[in-house]
Structure formats: structure tokens, C-alpha cells
């Protein structure tokens, strides 16, 4: 079913989209889709969807699905990036749709395939390099979406990310498929304003990065929210954040998902524990089979069924893992490792150790250039209200690190800060 068919099949008065003052029912959205379709955009079109207003952008996306050859979903932050013109060129776009107009770009030379369904192009966030275009289909993006309307209608999902980033799009598609209401928050606002928007919209389901959840818990306003579903993803999830969320939102189901723009949704963990069961290595998920390389990297074996002879491909997820007993834990990104005189340090692993201390509400571990060893490990800390002085807390952190880390992994410099910056995808920025 295309997205517009999904809307058509939803009860007409079902509230599906809320954005500020706008409240759009299925019927209201469908009327907008019909107006868009009257514009006679050719089936051969390859669209760059550059609409800034998230609510409008989603209506366009729904209308274009199944109508055109491909849609490049352009997140706001990407449009402003110097990498964007090259990506749009690679996507071979014939039209660009913005808030104001539809612009015809140079004619497409490649013959379109009228039979195939619309191709969806998503850009990686480029946290570790130049953003890349990843082709998806509606089918590949929605294969893990639940379609139970009875349960779905009880959920009001909040969206705190750009809907055209992979994590945001997953929330949008899940809400549309189960007829849940979706509340679009102002993603550029601070956490306090977002909390007000979540409360005003009676949001009871939210998917966000561990960094966002920590900020939400630090706000002191978390008690005003009632969640039934809490989803975490995009960064390694440690036990401290899972426990803190369980204590604060005792009625919520807590799920952490492993997904990325490149591989799609990998798997979900629902037992309230960090990492995932080692049994997962023997199972086949919709994205493929999980394996661990000799160097400790998580690999995904996917089957390419588009050709007559199915082939297997091994994808390197770039995530480092380690097995402890029957559990596999995420250590961090391989590409983000700090090199201390030839010894690799994974910042996320050091962060998870430091975060175990109750006096630490947030921490980011970064490399610092050093004339003796190339790089050193440094930590920026947001401290909780505590009787300890900064010097005493520093000592406590170092002592705590010594118990579980190697010498070169312990932050050589520790700085206290008021806030830790996250990037447009809600992840901690280590640059």
C-alpha cells in the first residue's frame, strides 16, 4: 500500500498530524494530497524534496510516494551544507520542490522504470565524513512497522528529529502505519520547549537518542510527562540511562533499537538491559544475519535477492562490540577511536564508565592533540548538584576510571561544562 492509500484507508476524522497550531485529520491530509496530484508531476520525475516546513514536507512525501520515480528526502541541515549540491547531482534529480516553488532541473538522461516502486533516497548524517546517499524502498523502510490499529490509536508519538533523517522517518512511518497521532516538535528548540510541546500534545511515545533522554531527565520537568513507549537509538545505550528511564517512567515499555541509514532497522532489544543477547548471533533478522569480526566489529550478512542467483554480502557496521558472558555490548564507533600513542580508545566506552557515577549527569569524551603521544583522552562533564568540589569530583572520577579502565583510557584532562552540544541528529558531537 502506498502512503497515500494508507491515509485514504484511515478513518476520515482520525487526527494524524499535529504541528503547532495545525491539527490535520486523515481527511484533511488526503485533500492536500489530491491538490498536489493535480499538479501533474511526471511519473519519470526524480524529486529533491527540499521543503523546510516539516508538516508540509511530510504531506509532499506522502503524495509523491508511488507517483514519481524517486524522492530524495532532504533534511534541513543538509540543504545548508556545502556537500548538498554534489549529493543532489548524484541523485540525478529532475525537479526540486521547496516551500515556494517546483523548479525543473536539467532533464534526466536515464530511462525511468515505470514498473518499479518509488525509490527513496536518504542521506547519512556524515558525522564521520562526507554524507552519502543511501537508496531505500518503502518496503525496506517499513518492514518492521507495526500495523495494529487498535494499539496504534492509543499512541501519540512525538517527533524530536528532522523527519527526513533515518531515525525521524522511522517514527513517521510507524505512526502512519498504525494510525497513531504524530506531534511534530520544533527540533531546533531547547529541551525545555520540546518538553512543553510533548506535554501540550499529550505525547505518550517517543523515540530519541540516549543523549536526548539524558537531557530530558536533567531538565527537572520529566515528571510532567507520561510515556507508555520509550525508544532509544542512534548511540550506544548504557545501563545507567535504561535504569534512570525505568525509575522515572515506571509504566513505559523501554526498547532500544539498532538501526542505521545504511542497513535500516537491525533489531530491537526489550529486556531493559544494555547490549543484546548473544543468541541474536544465531538468528536471522529482516536486515540480515549478525556476525562479529576477529577485530570485534559487528558485521551484517545480507542477502541480495534482486538477482536470479541470490548473493551474500558482508556489511561492516563500523560498530565495535565485545561479548561478556551471554551478552554482547556496544563499545562505540570504530572510526571515532582516539589514538593514544598507538593504543586505541573508544570514547563511548569511557563515557559509559564515567556515567555510572551519580554525580555525573552527562559526559563527552574527546581526543586532544598532544605533542608527546599524538592524542590524549579528555572529558567534558556536566555535574549534578553535589557537595563535592570540582577538584574532589575530578579525583572521584579518576579513581572510578582506574577500577575499570587502562591507564591510557583514563581522561588526562577533565573539564566541567554547563552543557554538552548535540548535533542535528541528536547525537553527541565529538569534533
Amino acid at each position, binding site marked *: 500500500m502506498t502512503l497515500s492509500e494508507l491515509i485514504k484507508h484511515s478513518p476520515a476524522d482520525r487526527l494524524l498530524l499535529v504541528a503547532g497550531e495545525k491539527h490535520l485529520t486523515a481527511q484533511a491530509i488526503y485533500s492536500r494530497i489530491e491538490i498536489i496530484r493535480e499538479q501533474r508531476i511526471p511519473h519519470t520525475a526524480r524529486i529533491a524534496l527540499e521543503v523546510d516546513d516539516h508538516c508540509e514536507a511530510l504531506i509532499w512525501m506522502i503524495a509523491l510516494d508511488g507517483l514519481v520515480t524517486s524522492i530524495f528526502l532532504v533534511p534541513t541541515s543538509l540543504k545548508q551544507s556545502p556537500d548538498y549540491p554534489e549529493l543532489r547531482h548524484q541523485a540525478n534529480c529532475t525537479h526540486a520542490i521547496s516551500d515556494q516553488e517546483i523548479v525543473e532541473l536539467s532533464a534526466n538522461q536515464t530511462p525511468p522504470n515505470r514498473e518499479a516502486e518509488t525509490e527513496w533516497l536518504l542521506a547519512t548524517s556524515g558525522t564521520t565524513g562526507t554524507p552519502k546517499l543511501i537508496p531505500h524502498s518503502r518496503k525496506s523502510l517499513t518492514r518492521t512497522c507495526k500495523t495494529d490499529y487498535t494499539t496504534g490509536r492509543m499512541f501519540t508519538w512525538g517527533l524530536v528529529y528532522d523527519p527526513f533523517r533515518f531515525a525521524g522517518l522511522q517514527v513517521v512511518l510507524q505512526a502512519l502505519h498504525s494510525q497513531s497521532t504524530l506531534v511534530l516538535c520544533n527540533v531546533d528548540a531547547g529541551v525545555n520547549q520540546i518538553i512543553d510541546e510533548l506535554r501540550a500534545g499529550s505525547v505518550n511515545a517517543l523515540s530519541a537518542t540516549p543523549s536526548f533522554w539524558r537531557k530530558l531527565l536533567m531538565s527537572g520537568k520529566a515528571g510532567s510527562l507520561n510515556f507508555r513507549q520509550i525508544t532509544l537509538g542512534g548511540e550506544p545505550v548504557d545501563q545507567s540511562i535504561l535504569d534512570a528511564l525505568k525509575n522515572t517512567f515506571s509504566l513505559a515499555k523501554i526498547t532500544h533499537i539498532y538501526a542505521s541509514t545504511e542497513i535500516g532497522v537491525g533489531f530491537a532489544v526489550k529486556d531493559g538491559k544494555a547490549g543484546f543477547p548473544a543468541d541474536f548471533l544465531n538468528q536471522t533478522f529482516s536486515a540480515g544475519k549478525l556476525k562479529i569480526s576477529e577485530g570485534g566489529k559487528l558485521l551484517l550478512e545480507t542477502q541480495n535477492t534482486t538477482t536470479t542467483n541470490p548473493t551474500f554480502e558482508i556489511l561492516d557496521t563500523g560498530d565495535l562490540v565485545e561479548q561478556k558472558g551471554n551478552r554482547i555490548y556496544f563499545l562505540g564507533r570504530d572510526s571515532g577511536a582516539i589514538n593514544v600513542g598507538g593504543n586505541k580508545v573508544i570514547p563511548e566506552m569511557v563515557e559509559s564508565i564515567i556515567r555510572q557515577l551519580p554525580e555525573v549527569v552527562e559526559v563527552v569524551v574527546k581526543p586532544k592533540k598532544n605533542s608527546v*603521544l599524538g592524542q590524549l583522552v579528555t572529558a567534558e562533564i556536566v555535574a549534578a548538584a553535589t557537595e563535592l568540589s570540582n577538584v574532589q569530583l575530578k579525583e572521584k572520577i579518576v579513581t572510578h576510571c582506574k577500577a575499570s579502565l587502562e591507564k591510557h583510557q583514563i581522561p*588526562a584532562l577533565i573539564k566541567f561544562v554547563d552543557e554538552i552540544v548535540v548535533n542535528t541528529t541528536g547525537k553527541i558531537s565529538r569534533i
Partner: protein
Amino acid sequence: MSNRELIVKIFHEVLDTTDSCLSSTLEDNTVLLDSGLDSLGFAILVARLEEELGFDPFVEMKEAVYPTTFADFVKIYDERKGAF
């Protein structure tokens, strides 16, 4: 506080945080490699001094100088400070 005093203070701090011990008293003629601090300790010492003084003289050097004794090390900081 003179450079020397600051360096001695931080030297001991770093010994402490890296669980290292001075092999004997820290004197001008103490050979750095035998002092008890390993290369990680030195890296931290230089980084901590940069935090305090705002510069890393080893980065700024046109030609690399490798200090042998503790006095050599202090001299590098003194000379950098004197250059301004």
C-alpha cells in the same frame, strides 16, 4: 609561582593520577626517563601544563628538542616564556 614550581606541582599530580612513583627525589639532574613517569605521564604533564600556561612549547618548536634531564625540561618552558 615560577615555571619550575608549577612544573614540580603538576609533575607530582600526574605521578599521583597515573599511580607512578618517583624513583628518587626530583632534582635538576634527574634523568626524565628514569624519573618514574612513563611516556603517558609525560604526555599528560605537557597537556596539563598547556592547560595552566596556555601553550605547548613542544608543538611550537621549529626543530624538535628532546629534554634529557628535569632542568632541560624546565628550561624549555622558561625559554618559551621569555620569548614574549
